[in-house]
């Protein structure tokens, strides 16, 4: 139930500038995902919002009120950590109730009801008496989420909550978090990840960070269809967008031409020619890697299981309306 505004926020650790002036607005009830390569400052930005780190300069506002110097517990936030960070010596119930017992003015009965309500939402009620060490990784992460829910926060912060889980559990928990966002649609959620699939599937809006600066903010589809830079174009989407330079790009009047693998067709009268290096067969679709004399192989995504012998020469054409043109500075030409 809070909007968050960052105005020219900076953070330095000693001589190292990690966040170099971020302006950002997170709307009420929005699911915002911070995404970017490792070391881009996304976790630091989350920790600045949580209050676990102080900002070096700039302003941070929650609902229009300055919170620069406010302690984490006074900001109305709850945080879910990558390593779960459960208290190992407390039962699941005690873990979830700990925050409320520290706040004054909560009757025992009220605390019990809130813990049980949160436990029901996450289907962990039968584990309330157990210790964290008696739970599996997925269950622990749900307890950590439950602990956050129990505090009834205005802002929910997730710091790469799924990266310690195995692939199947990651998908299941991802869906659970999406459901949680629907149920708690008044709560603002900020989610840090380096996994762009999580970003695309969960976010209302994505904030792409690079080297301590915001590269682009927008809905997943905006970022996918209208990236503001070569960096965003390359970061969002899987497989990665192909970048083609040289003569082929010049014909389209740009320094670099971006085209996604799913927007290329193999045709007999194709525009470009390439040699098959490798084919990856995923069942529902296949990735064909072509050597076209570019720095990196060009990936073409095809429906269904298709296999080409390595060394086969194929002709491909980009779908003209799906082409992204970038100038020498990496900015789009529209």
């Amino acid at each position, binding site marked *: 139930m809070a909007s968050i505004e960052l105005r020219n926020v900076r953070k330095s650790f000693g001589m190292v500038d990690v966040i170099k002036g971020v302006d950002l607005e997170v709307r009420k009830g929005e699911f915002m995902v911070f995404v970017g390569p490792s070391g881009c400052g996304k976790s630091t930005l989350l920790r600045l919002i949580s209050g676990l780190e102080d900002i070096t300069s700039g302003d941070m506002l929650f609902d229009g009120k300055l919170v620069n110097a406010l302690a984490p*517990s006074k900001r109305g936030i709850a945080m879910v950590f990558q390593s779960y*960070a459960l208290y190992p010596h407390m039962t699941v119930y005690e873990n979830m109730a700990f925050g409320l017992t*520290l*706040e004054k003015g909560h009757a025992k009965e009220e605390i019990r009801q809130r813990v049980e309500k949160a436990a029901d939402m996450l289907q962990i009620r039968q584990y309330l008496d157990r210790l964290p060490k008696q739970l599996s990784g997925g269950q622990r992460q749900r307890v950590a989420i439950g602990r956050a829910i129990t505090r009834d926060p205005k802002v929910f912060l997730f710091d790469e909550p799924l990266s310690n889980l195995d692939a199947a559990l990651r998908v299941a928990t991802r869906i659970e978090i999406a459901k949680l966002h629907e149920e708690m649609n008044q709560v603002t959620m900020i989610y840090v990840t380096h996994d762009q699939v999580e970003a695309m599937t969960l976010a209302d809006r994505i904030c792409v960070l690079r080297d301590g600066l915001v590269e682009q903010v927008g809905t997943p589809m905006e970022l996918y269809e209208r990236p503001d830079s070569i960096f965003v174009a390359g970061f969002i989407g899987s497989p990665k967008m192909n970048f083609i330079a040289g003569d082929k790009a010049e014909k389209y009047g740009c320094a670099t031409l971006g085209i996604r693998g799913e927007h290329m067709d193999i045709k007999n009268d194709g525009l470009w020619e390439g040699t098959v290096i490798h084919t990856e067969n995923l069942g529902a679709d296949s990735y064909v890697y072509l050597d076209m004399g570019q720095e990196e192989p060009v990936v073409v995504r095809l429906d269904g299981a298709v296999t080409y012998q390595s060394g086969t020469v194929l002709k491909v054409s980009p779908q003209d309306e799906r082409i992204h043109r970038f100038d020498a500075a990496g900015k789009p030409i529209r």
Partner: protein
Amino acid sequence: MGATFNLWKLIKWTLFYILVTFIVVVSVFPFYYAILTSFKSGTALFQINYWPTSFSLDNYFNVLNSGSFPRNLLNSIFVASVTVILALFLAITASFALARVRFRGRGLLLLTILGVSMFPQMAVLAGLFEVIRALGIYNTPWALIFSYTIFTLPFTVWVLTTFMRDLPVEIEEAAIVDGATPWVIITRVFMPLMWPALVTTGLLAFIGAWNEFLFALTFTANNDTRTVPVAIALLSGSTQYEIPWGNIMAASVIVTVPLVILVLIFQRKIVSGLTAGGVKG
């Protein structure tokens, strides 16, 4: 081939246990002999034998009924317990700061703490005596508590700092987000996780304070304020020329038994506590 292999195995096995027996005998014999002597009486004391020949509790009755020994025992218990409580309290709070709070000169401070513990007792005895006189606690248990705490703290702080550094930062941060103050974090989150370290350092501090002799001799002046090690050393016989070996040995056994019991109680805790962590997968 098989037979020689087994023979070699047997030889290795035998040599191993001969070595074990040797080490056990060498390290246990002094204690065994003290216990043996404590049960002897009269002239039997001066006959050398390695197995119990007579059994009498006379020495124990003598010691416990003689003058101030029970009082000395209580002094020792008081001094050692208060030292442990005080040292652990100071060390936990100090190590929280040293392990978790970033401040200028932290490394230097840690090294200084380690450096202080290198000084031999003898070197600081005179200075410490002045301090204790100035504080007006000479010849009271507080003089001993004060000096023992000073000498225990470097070790305690170092061990607890290392241990606290290894506790996951996320747990502390989760507690901060939950609204815990540093005091709540220390007492309700960290201390339950640190039981093994607390028990180990506490036990060592207790043993150190319990057995200490030099300070106890210097900072106390009469029978009622002495602790057990000094009292044992000053036990005198009926005449000037008699050293009451039987009483001394009985007193030593009485003094050692509580320590052995403490270690036996807590060593199980140490082992079970170490496995209680478990943060990640």
